[in-house]
């Protein structure tokens, strides 16, 4: 793009919906009620893996006020093949024959009073035959416990077809990348390093819990949902129904957070089935607790090995990543592939092997959570990279810069990097940290240290966004797009883009909430793809409308380049304030598929996201307690459409990752989740903030982005966890290899280092 100067784009406007949010009037679906609506409450599995012998619903059905009790077999009477999922059709709407994880939905009770439905759901009695279960991704590789008897890949993905019918395995998908000759590089290497890192299971905890209301009548299904993926939900429900997509309407409002919890189908299919059975609108509204059973972030194990020469050049890297996807695949297979190919880190390494595996286990399902697997990878490769630098006696920044990817060089997947500000991001992090200045590391029990880490992500590709921009006869404008504003400020950004192209003030633009009857297709609001993809679609649709306005002006005899107000133009054309000018666009970036043998592609992504963190910590060696004195988040954000909103994204992403790094962990005991509540699962509060937090934006033109912009919603997460681990090693000389980083873990490591290890629990 050759846009040189802009008036609306690049300005820090407040969010369009700000007034609604501070007055409590924002339109969350959780707050929606429909006439004659029933509430559904769910009876869930108390075990991790078992066969269902029988379900006794008689006591629940007999409770006064209960409208209906529904089991998986009942669902089959209205939806004969009730399995859904974006990559695999493996997830039943309600359990059939088996349960595969603690908290899996087994039956639902419908009542006008939600309290009655809730009490009745507890009266359902299910007889299970418990089966051997597996919860660990490594054990799942050769466990006698098999989660799914047969793999059922969705037919829509050509590259998953070979998995169809595969039996007796928990490996849902394996992805392999081979670049150069890693075996040779390792055989010839002067130094070889090997480490294994692990991450824990965590959850998004969007504060507006997952919710859907379905209203089905004859040949029409209307779904009000807190979804990030209205177009996909329409597609998937129409597939389940065997109906044309035009018979299914999926609409949403503003979302009270999403972070990936609300992508693809969550409770919409259940609401649909229940409404079909009850012939009434049905609301399925999860509690905070129920969200923990629905979607989580992958636990992972990553074994990483590096071959390094005497000059501190990484000449080979071998990465093996095992993703614990839980009982249902959700989008895990795509995490395995699309994040998998960045597993060797943002370094220019000529010989790389990557093996990335999606595993089924009996944990609650895992999917995408702000980074699509990237934070798990960065945790490992940036901890590993830091250890290498220290062991070779090379400054960690110098070591990284010696190996960093630069524009014009191929990333591991074979795609040449363009507009990837790796080195500037690293430099700015070091500069803000004062890396070159002498540093007081403390004495006595209080020791201080500093660490950095840098990570990156490719945009999920190829994906499509469509938009409509209509110009009303008074010159005001409506933008129709299916990008969901869940707090990231996309409505404001899309309005700014339309305002810029049409050269009208922002307050004359309305962005319509996604509604598949009205707003055109969008792949989904995920992976920081909207600013780039939908930004282009809105830009092109606005340009299309503008072209039509110019043609109309010419037709009515206005002089070329006339800046007559739009209302005058419409009156000239239609004789009164009437008519609508509609611009449309579809946008899909270029893409080249990965080679099935080597995993390589000359064009795997339209842009790269880059984020680094610098951390400064103080550790109390007597207790392991630590304080984050400073956290500096620096990201390559392209040319931001709205700099203030982008900065809050960067900062919020880092705060969220700080929780995953230090406090958040889902605890399973015998397959049962023991802490599915905010009382025992600690998300960051105001006192968990670092003493000082700074955000830095590298504003660099993305050559193929709308007005030079790129996605930035996840980049702030990338470096946080390993930067803190690296700072802790710098402070007290111990390495934490498993998240979360807790005072106990540090204290245990300190004791082990002193030759006086504590006993295990």
């Amino acid at each position, binding site marked *: 793009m050759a846009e040189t100067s802009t008036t609306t784009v690049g300005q820090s406007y407040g*969010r369009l919906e700000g007034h609604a949010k501070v*007055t*409590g009037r924002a339109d969350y679906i959780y707050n929606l009620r429909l006439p004659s609506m029933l509430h559904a409450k769910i009876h869930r599995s108390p075990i991790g893996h078992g066969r269902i012998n029988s379900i006794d619903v008689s006591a629940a059905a007999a409770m006064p006020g209960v409208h209906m009790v529904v089991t998986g077999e009942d669902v089959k009477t209205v939806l004969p093949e009730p399995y859904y999922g974006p990559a695999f059709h493996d997830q039943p709407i309600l359990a059939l024959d088996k349960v595969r994880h603690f908290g899996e939905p087994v039956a639902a009770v419908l009542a006008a009073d939600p309290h009655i439905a809730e009490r009745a759901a507890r009266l359902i009695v299910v007889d299970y035959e418990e089966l051997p279960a597996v919860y660990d991704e490594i054990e799942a590789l050769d466990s006698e416990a098999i989660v799914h008897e047969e793999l059922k890949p969705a037919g829509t993905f050509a590259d998953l077809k070979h998995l169809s019918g595969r039996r007796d395995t928990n490996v849902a998908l394996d992805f392999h990348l081979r670049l150069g000759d890693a075996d040779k590089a390792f055989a010839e290497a002067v130094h070889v390093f090997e480490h294994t890192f692990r991450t824990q299971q965590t959850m998004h905890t969007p504060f507006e819990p997952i919710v859907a209301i379905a209203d089905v009548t004859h040949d029409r299904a209307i779904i009000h949902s807190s979804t990030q993926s209205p177009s996909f939900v329409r597609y998937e429900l129409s597939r389940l129904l065997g109906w044309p997509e035009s018979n299914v309407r999926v609409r949403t409002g503003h979302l*009270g957070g999403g972070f990936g919890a609300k992508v693809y189908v969550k409770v919409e299919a259940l609401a649909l089935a229940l409404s079909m059975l009850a012939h009434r609108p049905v609301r399925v509204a999860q509690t905070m607790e129920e969200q923990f059973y629905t979607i989580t972030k992958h636990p992972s194990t990553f074994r990483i090995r590096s071959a390094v020469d005497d000059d501190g050049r990484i000449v080979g890297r071998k990465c093996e990543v095992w993703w614990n996807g839980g009982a249902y695949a959700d989008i895990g297979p795509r995490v395995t592939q699309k994040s998998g190919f960045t597993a060797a880190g943002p370094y220019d390494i000529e010989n790389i092997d990557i093996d990335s595996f999606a595993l089924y286990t009996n944990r609650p399902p895992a999917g995408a959570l702000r980074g699509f697997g990237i934070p798990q990878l960065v945790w490992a490769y940036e901890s590993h990279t830091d250890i290498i630098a220290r062991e070779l006696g090379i400054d960690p920044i110098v070591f990284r810069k010696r190996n960093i990817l630069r524009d014009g060089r191929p990333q591991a997947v074979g795609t040449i990097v363009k507009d990837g500000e790796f080195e500037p991001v690293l430099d700015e992090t070091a500069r803000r940290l004062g890396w070159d200045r002498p540093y007081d590391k403390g004495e006595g029990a209080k020791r201080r240290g500093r660490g950095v880490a840098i990570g990156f992500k490719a945009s999920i590709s190829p994906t499509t966004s469509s938009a409509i921009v209509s110009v009303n006869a008074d010159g005001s404008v409506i933008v129709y797009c299916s990008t969901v504003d869940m*707090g990231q400020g996309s409505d404001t950004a899309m309005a700014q883009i339309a305002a810029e192209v049409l050269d009208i003030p922002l307050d004359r633009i309305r962005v319509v909430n996604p509604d598949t009857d009205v707003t055109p297709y969008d792949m989904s609001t995920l992976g920081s793809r909207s600013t780039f993809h939908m930004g282009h679609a809105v830009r092109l649709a606005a340009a299309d409308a503008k072209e039509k306005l110019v043609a109309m002006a010419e037709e009515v005899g206005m002089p070329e380049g006339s800046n007559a107000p739009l209302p005058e133009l419409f009156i000239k054309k239609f004789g009164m304030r009437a008519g609508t000018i509609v611009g449309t666009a579809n946008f899909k970036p270029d893409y080249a598929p990965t080679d099935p043998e080597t995993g390589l592609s000359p064009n795997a992504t339209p842009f790269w996201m880059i984020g680094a963190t610098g951390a400064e910590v103080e550790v109390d060696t007597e207790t392991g307690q630590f304080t984050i004195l400073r956290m500096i988040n620096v990201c390559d954000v392209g040319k931001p459409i709205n700099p203030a909103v982008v900065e809050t994204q960067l900062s919020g992403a880092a705060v*969220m990752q700080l929780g995953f790094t230090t406090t958040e962990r889902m605890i399973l005991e015998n397959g049962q989740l023991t802490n599915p*509540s*905010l009382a025992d699962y600690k998300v960051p509060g*105001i006192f968990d903030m670092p003493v000082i937090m700074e955000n830095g934006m590298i504003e660099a033109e993305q050559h193929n982005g709308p007005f030079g912009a790129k996605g930035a919603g996840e980049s702030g997460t990338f470096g946080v966890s390993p930067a803190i681990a690296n700072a802790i090693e710098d402070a007290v000389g111990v390495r934490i290899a498993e998240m979360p980083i807790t005072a106990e873990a540090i204290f245990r490591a300190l004791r082990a280092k002193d030759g006086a290890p504590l006993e295990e629990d």
Partner: protein
Amino acid sequence: MSRHTINFTLNGRPVTADVGTHQNLTEVLQESFGLFGARESCGQGLCGCCTVLIDGAAVTSCLALAAFADGSDVQTVEGLADGEELSPEQEAFIEIGAFQCGYCTPGFVLMTRQLLDENPDPDDDEIKHYLSGNLCRCGAYPEIVQAVRLAGEKRRAR
């Protein structure tokens, strides 16, 4: 499930509601009065999304049984603005951009109101202490602290 009739003042107006003994105030505000500014999230009084002021004191309404609201003065976020004129706290949250998804915002705005009623010019530490019972999953804490400071300035200037 027995029921009670309660009378209380809601955002300055006297109201009556027929409530079940098991119903919490969040539910009654939503189902009887159509007010959704106080909203359930964690359901355990930990996140603060359901914050309301009862007799001027901030309360997590998901833990407050509605029956006990009888005779009290309840203020929700919907009662803060005077017609189209936003309160200084609301203005400050907009001007700073102290929210992302906005789901927790009414709770933070009401806590800010109560804080500034008690302490017109709090320092950052006092602000953090006061707001530590409210959670923001989007992590807008740095902006929230700024917004409280700005709200204080606005109130002192009025």
